C-alpha cells in the first residue's frame, strides 16, 4: 500500500500535464505508459529517502553540457557538482518517472504561487474544511440515526459545502450524482410496478388464447368424429380470434424485456458514473471528496468493497501496469494515507524550518504540496514559513544559474548567503567547484601570459579559451585581455600614425615618439626599415643641433650656423633644424649672406662671383668649411671653363 500511495505523486504530475494544454505530451505519456517505469517504481524505497540517481528528474533542469568544460566532463568538476545540486533538489523522482522540463516548470509555478499565497486560515476556509470532515463523519455514523437519515443529512451538507468557492462545486457534482441515483431508483421502482401490471396482463392474454385454442381443439375433434361418416367435409379454425391476443401478448413481453433491460443498464451506468467520480476526486487529490463519494457509494449501492470497473484506462494512466485491484476500500485507504502523509509532512516542515534546515523543509513541503494541495494542513501553512522556503528556492536557482554560467564570484556570494541561514545545505561540492574553477582558470591565464611573452599567438588564444571556459569572469583574464588588446590597439594606432607622419615627412614627430614606434613596428619589416632610416637621419640632425648649441655656447655662431646650414641642405624638412638655423642666421647675417650669394651665383653659373662671395665668407669666418670646400672647386671650374673658351 505504501508503494501504491507514492504513485499519487506521479498521478499529480500527470494530472498537471493533462491540465496544461500546451504541455508536450511525449514526456508525460512516455513516462506514464512505459510499463517498466511503474514496476521499477514499485520496488523503490520510501519517497522521502534521498535518491541517488542524479540523472533523474531535476527540479531545476539544466543541460549538463552547459556545465561541462568541453563537453567531456572537464569543466572543473562542473557536471558532478551540478548533479549534486540536482540531487539535492530532487523531489519528484519518486516513482522513476522523468518529468519534462515543462512539467517541472509548471510545478515550480504552482508551488511558487502557493508559497506566495497567504495561509488559507480565514473563518470561511476553516468552516469549509470542517464541513468536509463533518460530511465524512456523518456518513460513517457520527450523530446517529438511520442510514437513510445520515445519507440525506450528508447530502444536504454537500450543497452547503458547495457554497464555498474553494470547493470548486465538487460537492455539488457529488450531490447531483446522489440525486441522479435517487431519480433513477425511483424510475426503476416505477418500472418494476409497471412490470407487475404487464405480467398480469400477459397472464390474462395467455389464458384467453389457451381458452380459444381449447375450444378450437374440441370443435376439431367433434368434426373429425363426424367426418368418419362423411368424408370430404371442410375443416374450420378460430385463428381469427387468437391472433389479436397473440399480438397483445408479444407486445407485453417486449415491454417487460425493455423495462428489465433498462433496470439493469441503469444500475450499471450509475455504478460506473459514481466510480468514475470517486476516482476523479482521488486523482485530483480531493481526498475528502473521494472519501465522501466512496461512503455514498457504499451506502447507495450496498457494496462494502466494490471493485471499480470501467476505469481501466484511467487506472493505467495513474497507476501504470501495477497489479492493483482498485476497489472503493483501496481508494479510501489511499486517501486517508495521503491526508496523513500531507499532515505529517507539514508538521515536519514546520519543525525543520524552526531548526533552519530549510533544504529538507523545502523537500518535505514540496511533497506535502504535491500530495495534498487542497488539504487543510497544506493550505493553512503559515506564509512566513513559506517565504523562507521561497527565498531558499530562489537562492538555489540563482546559485545554479551562477554555476551554469560559471560566474564563480556570484556563486560564492550566493553560497555564503545560503549557508548563513540554511543549516542543512551540502555546500561541499559547490565550494570545490568554485575553488577548482579558479585554480584551473588562473593556471591557464599563466599559460597565456607565458605564450604572450614568447609571441605564441595560438598558445595565447588556446590558453585564454581554457581560462574562460573554467571561469569566464576571472579578473585576471580581463587584465590580460586589456594588456593584449591594448598592445594591439597601440600597434594599430602607431602604424596609422607612422604612415600619416611619413606622408607628411614629419620625421621629427616620428623621432619624438620613437619608443612607441619602435615597439609597435618591430614586427613590421617594411615600416621598421623606414623607421630605422628615419632614426639615422634624425641622429645626424640631432647631432648637428647639439654641436650647434655647443658652438653657440662658445660664441662661435658662424660655426654653429654653418653646421646647421650644411645639415639643413641634407635634411631641409626638419622643422627644428630649420628653426634653429633661422635663429642663428640672424646672428651671422653677413656670413650667411655671403654664402647665400655664393650659392645663388653658383646656381646662375657665375662661378667668379661665387668665388668672390666664398672668399668674402671665409674672410668673415676663416674656419668656414663651406667656403673652404667651395673655393678650390670654384677656382678650378673657372680655370677649366677658361681653357674651354680659349682657342
Amino acid at each position: 500500500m505504501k508503494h501504491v500511495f507514492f504513485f499519487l505523486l506521479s498521478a499529480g504530475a500527470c494530472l498537471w500535464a493533462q491540465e496544461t494544454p500546451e504541455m508536450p505530451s511525449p514526456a508525460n505519456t512516455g513516462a506514464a505508459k512505459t510499463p517498466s517505469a511503474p514496476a521499477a517504481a514499485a520496488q523503490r524505497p520510501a519517497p522521502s529517502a534521498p535518491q541517488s540517481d542524479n540523472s533523474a528528474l531535476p527540479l531545476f533542469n539544466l543541460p549538463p553540457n552547459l556545465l561541462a568544460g568541453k563537453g567531456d566532463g572537464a569543466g572543473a568538476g562542473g557536471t558532478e557538482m551540478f548533479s549534486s545540486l540536482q540531487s539535492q533538489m530532487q523531489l519528484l523522482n519518486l516513482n522513476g518517472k522523468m518529468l519534462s522540463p515543462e512539467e517541472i516548470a509548471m510545478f515550480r509555478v504552482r508551488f511558487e504561487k502557493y508559497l506566495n499565497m497567504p495561509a488559507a486560515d480565514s473563518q470561511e476556509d476553516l468552516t469549509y474544511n470542517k464541513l468536509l470532515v463533518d460530511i465524512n463523519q456523518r456518513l460513517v455514523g457520527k450523530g446517529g440515526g438511520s442510514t437513510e437519515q445520515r445519507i440525506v443529512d450528508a447530502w444536504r451538507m454537500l450543497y452547503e459545502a458547495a457554497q464555498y468557492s474553494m470547493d470548486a462545486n465538487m460537492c455539488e457534482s457529488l450531490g447531483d450524482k446522489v440525486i441522479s441515483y435517487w431519480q433513477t431508483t425511483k424510475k426503476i421502482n416505477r418500472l418494476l410496478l409497471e412490470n407487475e401490471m404487464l405480467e398480469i396482463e400477459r397472464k390474462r392474454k395467455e389464458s384467453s388464447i389457451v381458452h380459444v385454442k381449447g375450444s378450437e381443439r374440441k370443435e376439431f375433434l367433434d368434426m373429425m368424429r363426424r367426418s368418419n361418416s362423411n368424408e370430404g367435409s371442410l375443416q374450420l379454425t378460430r385463428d381469427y380470434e387468437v391472433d389479436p391476443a397473440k399480438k397483445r401478448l408479444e407486445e407485453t413481453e417486449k415491454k417487460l424485456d425493455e423495462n428489465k433491460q433498462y433496470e439493469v443498464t441503469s444500475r450499471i451506468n450509475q455504478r460506473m458514473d459514481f466510480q468514475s467520480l470517486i476516482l476523479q476526486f482521488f486523482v485530483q487529490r480531493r481526498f475528502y471528496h473521494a472519501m465522501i463519494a466512496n461512503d455514498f457509494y457504499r451506502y447507495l449501492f450496498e457494496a462494502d468493497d466494490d471493485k471499480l470497473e470501467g476505469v481501466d484506462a484511467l487506472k493505467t494512466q495513474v497507476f501504470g501496469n501495477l497489479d492493483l485491484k482498485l476497489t472503493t476500500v483501496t481508494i479510501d485507504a489511499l486517501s486517508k494515507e495521503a491526508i496523513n502523509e500531507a499532515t505529517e509532512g507539514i508538521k515536519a516542515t514546520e519543525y525543520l524550518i524552526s531548526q533552519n534546515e530549510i533544504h529538507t523543509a523545502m523537500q518535505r513541503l514540496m511533497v506535502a504540496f504535491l500530495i495534498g494541495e487542497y488539504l487543510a494542513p497544506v493550505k493553512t501553512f503559515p506564509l512566513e514559513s513559506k517565504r523562507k522556503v521561497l527565498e531558499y528556492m530562489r537562492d538555489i536557482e540563482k546559485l545554479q544559474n551562477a554555476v551554469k554560467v560559471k560566474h564563480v564570484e556570484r556563486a560564492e556570494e550566493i553560497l555564503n548567503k545560503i549557508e548563513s541561514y540554511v543549516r542543512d545545505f551540502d555546500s561541499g561540492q559547490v565550494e570545490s567547484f568554485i575553488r577548482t574553477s579558479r585554480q584551473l582558470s588562473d593556471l591557464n591565464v599563466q599559460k597565456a601570459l607565458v605564450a604572450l611573452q614568447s609571441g605564441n599567438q595560438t598558445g595565447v588564444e588556446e590558453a585564454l579559451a581554457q581560462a574562460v571556459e573554467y571561469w569566464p569572469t576571472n579578473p585576471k583574464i580581463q587584465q590580460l585581455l586589456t594588456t593584449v588588446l591594448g598592445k594591439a590597439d597601440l600597434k594599430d594606432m602607431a602604424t596609422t600614425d607612422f604612415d600619416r607622419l611619413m606622408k607628411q615627412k614629419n620625421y621629427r614627430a616620428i623621432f619624438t615618439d620613437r619608443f612607441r614606434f619602435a615597439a609597435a613596428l618591430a614586427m613590421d619589416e617594411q615600416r621598421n626599415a623606414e623607421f630605422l632610416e628615419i632614426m639615422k637621419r634624425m641622429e645626424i640632425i640631432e647631432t648637428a643641433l647639439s654641436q650647434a648649441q655647443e658652438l653657440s655656447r662658445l660664441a662661435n655662431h658662424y660655426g654653429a650656423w654653418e653646421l646647421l646650414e650644411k645639415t639643413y641642405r641634407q635634411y631641409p624638412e626638419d622643422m627644428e633644424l630649420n628653426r634653429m638655423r633661422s635663429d642663428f642666421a640672424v646672428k651671422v647675417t653677413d656670413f650667411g649672406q655671403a654664402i647665400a650669394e655664393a650659392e645663388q651665383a653658383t646656381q646662375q653659373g657665375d662661378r667668379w662671383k661665387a668665388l668672390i662671395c666664398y672668399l668674402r665668407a671665409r674672410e668673415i669666418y676663416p674656419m668656414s668649411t663651406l667656403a673652404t670646400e667651395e673655393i678650390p672647386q670654384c677656382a678650378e671650374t673657372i680655370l677649366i671653363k677658361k681653357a674651354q673658351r680659349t682657342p
Partner: protein
Amino acid sequence: MKNEKKTLIIVFGILAATAVVVMGIFVARTTPAGAYDVLPVAQYVKTPRSLGGNTYIVDVRIDSQLAYKGEIGRVIAVRTQDEKVMLPVLVLKGHSAAFDPRVGQPYRFVVEVDEDGELILLETKKL
C-alpha cells in the same frame, strides 16, 4: 742786355717748364698707377660684370693660390691693401712666367675685368 737776359731767362723757363710737363707726361705714361684708375673694389665685389672691359690698378698683398692648371694658369687670392677685401685674380699662363708671387708680397696689379667679371692680371709691380 738786360732785355736779352730777361728774354733768355724766360725762354729757358719755358723750356724748363715744357720739359717738366713732357717728363711728367712721360712718367705718367710709363707708370701703371698713373695709366689706370684704381679698381673700385666695393662696386666690383658687388657687381663684377658691370665693370667688364675696364682695366684697373689695384694694390694687393698675395694671400694664397686657389687653383692651378699648367696649360691655363692659376687663380690666386689677394687682399686689397686699402679695403682689406679678398679678391680672386686670374693669372693666365702667358703672364705667369714673369710672375712669381709669394704669400704676403705686396703688388700693384694692373687688371682687366673681362666679360664674365673675372679679374685678369695684366701687369704686376712689386711695391
